[in-house]
């Protein structure tokens, strides 16, 4: 899995005792934005010859927040856009997976992750991913309501489901914003 927030979410939900289905759904809902990144990248990565199937399969794996952000700074269809996409995607792919490997091996050597404060590092990682997305009042409101709803549901639902309930909050928020935009 090469899309950071989804990877953290999958591990986070499983680690907190959540079921596999809840963990997978949370990760995939978080990763749905990559579909739109891929869509918006199409004109930027376009070449005169149509790309081979292998190239498309490779591009798909490297489509993440960072590679998209770097590519769309250059003109559509330019060599710079393709190079920025490839360089950013590959560099992060290699380093990210080395990091994951170190983490997986390192965790096995730990007695109690709480002593090192690693349980506090998990929400810190999520809020660091959330922070740049809090662009205006309505996204901040959505974040606060989602957090409150999830906490309120913790005692009543199986682990993993309170987080998933935030997806419903997002659906309702989308309807409210659509009505307001009209």
């Amino acid at each position, binding site marked *: *899995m090469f*899309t950071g927030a*989804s990877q953290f979410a999958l591990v986070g939900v*499983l680690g*907190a*005792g959540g079921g*596999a289905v809840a963990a*997978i759904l949370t*990760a995939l*809902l978080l*990763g*749905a*934005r*990559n*579909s*739109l990144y*891929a869509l918006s990248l*199409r004109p930027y990565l376009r070449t005169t010859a149509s790309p081979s199937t292998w190239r*498309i399969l490779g*591009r*798909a*794996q490297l*489509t993440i927040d960072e590679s998209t952000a770097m590519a769309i700074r250059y003109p559509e269809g330019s060599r710079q856009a393709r190079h920025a996409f490839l360089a950013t995607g590959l560099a992060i792919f290699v380093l990210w997976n080395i990091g994951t490997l170190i983490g997986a091996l390192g965790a096995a050597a730990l007695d109690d992750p709480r*002593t*090192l*404060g690693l349980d*506090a*590092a*998990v*929400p*810190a990682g999520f*809020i*660091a*991913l*959330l922070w740049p*997305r*809090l662009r205006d009042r309505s996204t901040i409101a*959505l*974040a606060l309501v*989602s*957090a*409150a*709803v*999830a*906490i309120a549901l*913790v*005692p*009543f639902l199986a*682990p993993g489901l*309170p*987080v998933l*309930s*935030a*997806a419903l*909050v*997002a*659906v309702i*928020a*989308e309807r409210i914003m*659509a009505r307001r935009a009209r």
Partner: protein
Amino acid sequence: MIWPAVIIGSLGAYLLKLAGYVIPERVLENERLSRLTGLLPVALLAALVAVQTFSVGTALQIDARIAGLAAAMVALLLRAPFLVVVLVAAITAAVLRATGLSA
């Protein structure tokens, strides 16, 4: 159930990316869909922050993780990079526990 979840989740995450390259553009260019995919990460990440800070299984619990989260938010306000934010939170919680100030 850990490895099946990892494999199915990874495959699904990859197929979502691939879909953006192979599905006809007009199918994905739905205003409602694009707005929703923008809001989903905000809602889910906020819920993950809250649940991972305040819960243990199905119980709510207040411990050193809150101090860690507060420290992380200060670091974010100071525009610290990702790794620093995470380290600041972990160190804050670890110090509070080591000194017996917090559970």
